[in-house]
């Protein structure tokens, strides 16, 4: 039977496609809608958190840190409640990671503070002796790309109906309003930091990457 196909490239290619696509159709499609329903209390990221998430992605933090707590006692003891599907409803892309060179960060906002992260990014071994994480001093001098964060939020609101601007949800507003609200959020974080250059930048209306990424990490609960 297969011999017939080996002399007819077109039908051969069609048969290959059917064989390969079969699993995807059966596995992926049925639960697609169900899994994207948010759990109660899950909210989209604020603009500053989104900007921080971009920093997290830019420096591939997910290459070494997972954001997925498996349902084992050893993991819930170490990191907190195991992950639920709906908690990721606003994660585009997902950031589960595939390797834990460092610990899981799914609920890091519950047990680490702004100044801990500040020290950790500047010199990881200063807070965790023996850490093999690189230092990220450039987070203190690079400015976060807040405009792209705004662009993403506007896009997901428009295209995927992400509930921004609804009651009890993060606000977007116009670009001017968005900048003002991001700066306000940044000021709260900078108040807990020691680095004078960062404090000065925020006072001057700028938002360094470190402020954004801390906002994001603090939101992981």
């Amino acid at each position, binding site marked *: 039977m297969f011999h017939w196909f080996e002399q007819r490239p077109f039908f051969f290619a069609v048969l290959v496609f059917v064989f*390969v696509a*079969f699993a*995807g159709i059966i*596995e992926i499609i049925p639960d697609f809608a169900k899994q994207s329903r948010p759990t109660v209390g899950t909210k989209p990221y604020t603009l500053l958190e989104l900007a921080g998430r971009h920093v997290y992605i830019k420096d591939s933090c997910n290459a070494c840190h997972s954001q*997925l707590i498996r349902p084992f006692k050893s993991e819930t003891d170490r990191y907190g409640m195991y992950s639920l599907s709906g908690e990721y409803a606003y994660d585009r892309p997902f950031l589960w990671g595939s*390797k834990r060179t460092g610990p899981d960060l799914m609920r890091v906002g519950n047990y680490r503070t702004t100044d801990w992260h500040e020290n950790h990014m500047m010199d990881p071994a200063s807070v965790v002796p023996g850490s*093999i994480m690189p230092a990220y001093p450039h987070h203190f001098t690079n400015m976060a790309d807040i405009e*792209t964060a705004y662009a993403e939020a*506007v896009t997901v609101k428009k295209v995927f109906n992400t509930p921004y601007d609804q009651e009890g949800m993060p606000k977007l507003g116009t670009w001017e309003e968005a900048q003002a609200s991001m700066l306000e959020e940044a000021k709260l974080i900078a108040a807990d930091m020691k680095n004078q250059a960062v404090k000065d930048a925020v006072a001057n209306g700028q938002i360094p990457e470190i402020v954004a990424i801390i906002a994001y990490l603090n939101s992981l609960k």
Partner: protein
Amino acid sequence: MQNGAQIEYDYSVAKLFTFATILFGIIGMTIGVILAFQLAFPGLNNLAGEYGTFSRLRPLHTNGVAFGFSLSGIFAGWYYISQRVLKVSLKESPFLMAIAKLHFVIYFITILLAVVTLFMGITTSKEYAELEWPLDILVVVWWVLWGVSIFGLIGIRRERTLYISIWYFIATFIAVAMLYLFNNMEVPTALVSGYGSWIHSVSMYAGTNDALVQWWYGHNAVAFVFTTPIIALIYYFLPKESGQNVYSYKLSILAFWGLLFVYLWAGGHHLIYSTVPDWMQTMGSVMSVVLILPSWGSAINMLLTMKGEWNQLQTNTLIKFMVLASTFYMLSTIEGPIQAIKSVNAIAHFTDWIPGHVHDGVLGWVVFMIMASLFHMVPRMFKREIYSKSLMDTQFWLQTTGIVLYFTSMWIAGITQGMMWRAYDEYGSLVYSFIDTVTVLHPYYTIRAVGGLLYLIGFFMFAYNIYKTITAGRVLDKEPVNATPVAA
């Protein structure tokens, strides 16, 4: 050919891809060794500011070796093998020749742009699909060009029946096209909102769905970049180099269709104990074990091709490369299913056993087979004898030692880590803090880095040997012929 007329094959594009293979191999593997040393000696992270950290280099390494090195080698193999088993020269069709050259140029530019953008931190963060949307479009363009080349050459063929290698190339083309398109569905945010960076996009899928599509893709990038095209290479080059017929036609059919049918189901094993539905996890686990059958089917078919001719292992280093490649394919395809068993996965997932598994597969199987292919092709394309057989032999043993150091250290590291994470004392508290599980790995990370370095040195030997073959090898008056496949 029956009428005795010799077809004059055109190797210009195969040669271009050969050079690209070596160039991207050197870049990708060098970065890999740097990464390995960074894990053992973290001080090496901040030598080049933000551009030299592990986190920036890691996607560069995976993209560089998978899509730079491996795909170049696969394309080089395609432009060499296709003409021969289809009995047609690229020269006969100016159109297909132009397509092939365009394929190379756009491909090469894409990989260079990938290097630049990843260094800058422009990434979607999805593993092996990190490139942002403008580059994704370029990838689709050269993939389609390759498709035109495949079906174009098949269209003008003189050999009626498609040789096994061609089946695998077709499967590679179709499956990767499907997987890549669906996983890279994204919305450019600047186009929708009018604000922000034009190169930024947001994934079409969210959370668990995104994970599902990503690992459906990610696992099958392994299937259709690291498996099927490499099998295509070995099905041509091993019989050709040894002068033996493929052991069993029936087994090759069974293995081929079996592999295509089962492979995609196995993607779920990346998501065991995650938030995807339980039945998918179980399916991923079970199908991974079933996958042993078609995988070993191909590997056994290859090894038995050497039946009665095992003495060639002593006389022909190239056969050694290919037999070892098949053996590592078997090792890797038994290791994968073991890791996919739920209870083993609970320990292995997130640990160094996973990169260990990937690397015994790619270093032992993919890279060995691609190097062997080039060793076979280069003397025929450039009409020169291999420059140094003893250098080849040294390279073989150096790299084999490197692989063994790599996977043994990572097995130990991974299992150690997995066991330490779950260790409880008699009062029911966790015994180790996370950092304990990191610092304990230092010796294994060092061994792995040394193993990687040996392998890299071997690759430089390979590059040198090929370079000297092309420039200073003894000129052959006619191509070395070892008969079969399809006896030319």
